């Protein structure tokens, strides 16, 4: 099978600082990829490159047979993106915001309307459809962003820390949503540092550290390679040189001084 996303030797610099140091990755249709790594490892940078937000990268990114360098418009049509921080135009209402999104994807306004109404109803935001988002909690904004990533029925859904600020019930909805989307044949690129959820939702886990892929495989494969540990322990082992419990001890010591 052809990979739907194929990343080869991906490099990216911010000024002199090299953030991605040669990422290689193949993702197949219908897969749920958990993309994990510590803060500053390059997770969000990879995501932004995939979404076409950072065009000046080196290396090759092929999505559904299209080259991201040359066919970014067609690729963008295939993608739905939930950005990391709940960034949206807060003075708009969800209905207004989503109709703008629909217009940008050139959906017929009627389609946008029906879809947004149903999606937001499912996310329990039906009553807030016409309220400005500046009064919304972080979780409510995140739900609107999730709706905005799905409204054009994309084939690939890229989620950057989608569960930030969501309450427990919504987390359950999103987890179900992810597995149902995967059943529908959607490919999901799930970027997070919350190990327990990644462990549950992802078929395949890609762990990056310092701009490089350090582990790549299903949870069971990783267990085979790295010993029978929890994902959290594997993560700590691969990404942190010194002992993490040491840090806690130092804090206690400082408090007693």
């Amino acid at each position, binding site marked *: 099978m052809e990979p739907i996303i194929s990343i080869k030797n991906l490099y990216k610099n911010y000024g002199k600082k090299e953030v991605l140091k040669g990422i290689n990755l193949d993702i197949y249709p219908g897969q749920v990829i958990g993309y994990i790594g510590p803060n500053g490892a390059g997770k969000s940078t990879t995501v932004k490159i995939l979404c076409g937000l950072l065009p000046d990268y080196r290396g090759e990114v092929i999505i559904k047979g299209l080259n991201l360098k040359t066919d970014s418009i*067609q690729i963008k049509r295939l993608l739905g993106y939930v950005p990391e921080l709940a960034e949206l*135009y807060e003075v*708009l209402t969800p209905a*207004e915001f989503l109709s703008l999104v629909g217009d940008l994807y050139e959906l017929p306004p009627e389609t946008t309307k029906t879809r947004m109404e149903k999606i937001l109803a499912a996310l329990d935001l039906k009553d807030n*459809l016409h309220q400005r988002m500046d009064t919304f909690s972080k979780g409510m904004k995140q739900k609107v962003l999730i709706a905005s990533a799905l409204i054009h029925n994309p084939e690939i859904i890229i989620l950057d820390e989608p569960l930030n600020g969501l309450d427990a019930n919504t987390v359950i909805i999103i987890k179900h949503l992810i597995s149902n989307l995967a059943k529908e044949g959607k490919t999901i690129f799930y970027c997070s540092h919350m190990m327990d959820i990644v462990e549950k939702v992802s078929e395949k886990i890609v762990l990056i550290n310092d701009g490089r892929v350090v582990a790549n495989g299903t949870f069971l494969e990783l267990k085979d390679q790295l010993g029978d540990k929890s994902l959290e322990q594997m993560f700590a082992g691969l990404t942190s040189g010194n002992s993490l419990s040491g840090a806690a001890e130092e804090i206690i010591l400082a408090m007693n001084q």
Partner: protein
Amino acid sequence: MSKHLTKFILWFVLLPASLYKKFGVEIPKLKSILNAKLLMDDRRVNGLYKTKSGQHDHNVSSATLITMFISLIMGAVFLTAFTFEKDLTCFTVYFSFVIIILSLFLITDFTQVLIDVKDNYIILPKPIRANTFIATRLLHIFIHVSKIVIPMSLPALIMIGITRSVWGAFSFIPIMILLTTFTLFLVNAIYLFILKIFSPEKFKSIITSVQIVFAIVIYGSFQLMPRMMNESGLNEADITDYTFIWLIPSYWFAGAWKFIYSFTPDMNLMICALLSVAVPIVSIWLVIKYFAPAFQNKLTLISSGSSSKQIKADTQDITNIHPGYSLLLAKIFTQNVAERGAFLFTWKMTTRSRDFKMKVYPQFGYLIVIIALMFYRSVSHHSINALLDGTADIRIPLLTLIYLSSFILLGAITQLPYSENFNASWLFHTSPLKNPGQIISGSIKATIVKFCLPIILFVMLASISVIGTQLIPNLLFGFVNTMLISSIIGRIMMNKLPFSSPRKNMSEGQNTAKGFFMLFVFGACAIPHYFLFNFNWVISIFTIISAGGTHMVLQSIKNISWSELKE
């Protein structure tokens, strides 16, 4: 410089430290809280200052000095009141200026500076006595108000010392203190009133509107007051002729000053003096007893954002996402879905974004002031009759009026790319649009339709009904030219997506270059128009050419590509 000022203020307000201690105030805590508050004040931009320059909040470090300087200038403008010859009239006018401007000053930064709700989370959970906390608040308010009032009253103080007597200047000081107390009460009352009538969500936008009005009032008073005072025979007016004057608080304070200054046992003056002592004292009592607690509760509500739960579920029909006419206008003026989306988006953002309003709306106000000023002048030079029967040259006033609307647009269009919420523009970058130009053109069209069309229609109707239909060809030509100018400005200025960038300071050079360019385009359209004014056929042909040009420029905006965008 401002560091020393902060140190001095701290030292000064802590002089009676032993007295505070008797009331159970913890002096070291008081000192460190006040120190932090003063530091924050110094880094905060005053509402007025914010509208005037492109300065970003982050690098301000001497806001205090700037505020004091502005107050000083305002105080100097108030001196126009002293052109009145009668004492009572002159002081009533002066005190009215003080009450109005001081209230506006305080309203704009009351929530930010004086009653910071963050205190609830940061200071109150710490082990600190209630008395200490109250003392920091009161002292902070005292310091903040003094920073405004002292420079503001300085020019008048000197003026009174020179024109009246040193004793007159001395008696001015207690009156100013009473007046300030009264104004504080007034501001409190206004705030509570706004909070009572409007929902906490609306509150912030009301404050923004107040700030905008503030900026316009100040600008207008700079421009108009000195002129009006000089030219009219107003300076001999005597307000004591009117009994309604008793309803105006500044009259009481004027009477009180006169009473202390002259020691005349005049019944009216004595009543004034009594009122101006009693009212502030009663109002302080009211503030402490009733207003302050209610106030605190309401403000906590505003910032917690929990109030959104109280809004009733909207039963509005899903079909009305865009209220009636904006959708209709969008359908008329745009050609595809993306452009229409951008049109509607800009339509809403320009109404709702506080940031945009703060920058652009005051400019409209300034323009109205300028027009008022021009009108005022032309009325004093020509008679209206001469304009009406066509004997006077109407070319200059009419053309100025027409082409001024393109200046309004310039203001709006140059602010279009900026927003506090700029991070949300990822949305445009992830969208599968071939050209971002569609978004930009939708956005520019919305701005033109929203900010220029109403003025155009108004000027057209007004001048046709006053002067007659013979102006139609010229009006049309003028407005098509305005469109052309606006779209050219749009083509050149808008190399960014709407509401997608953080606001940056424009360099002086860029501003000048922009100004020159504007003048050039403006002149290129207005000067030929002036000379062709009476040749209706030529004007009509040029109207068509200009319309064609506008169309071409708008099309070329649509074709702006991703690579032409500036980050």
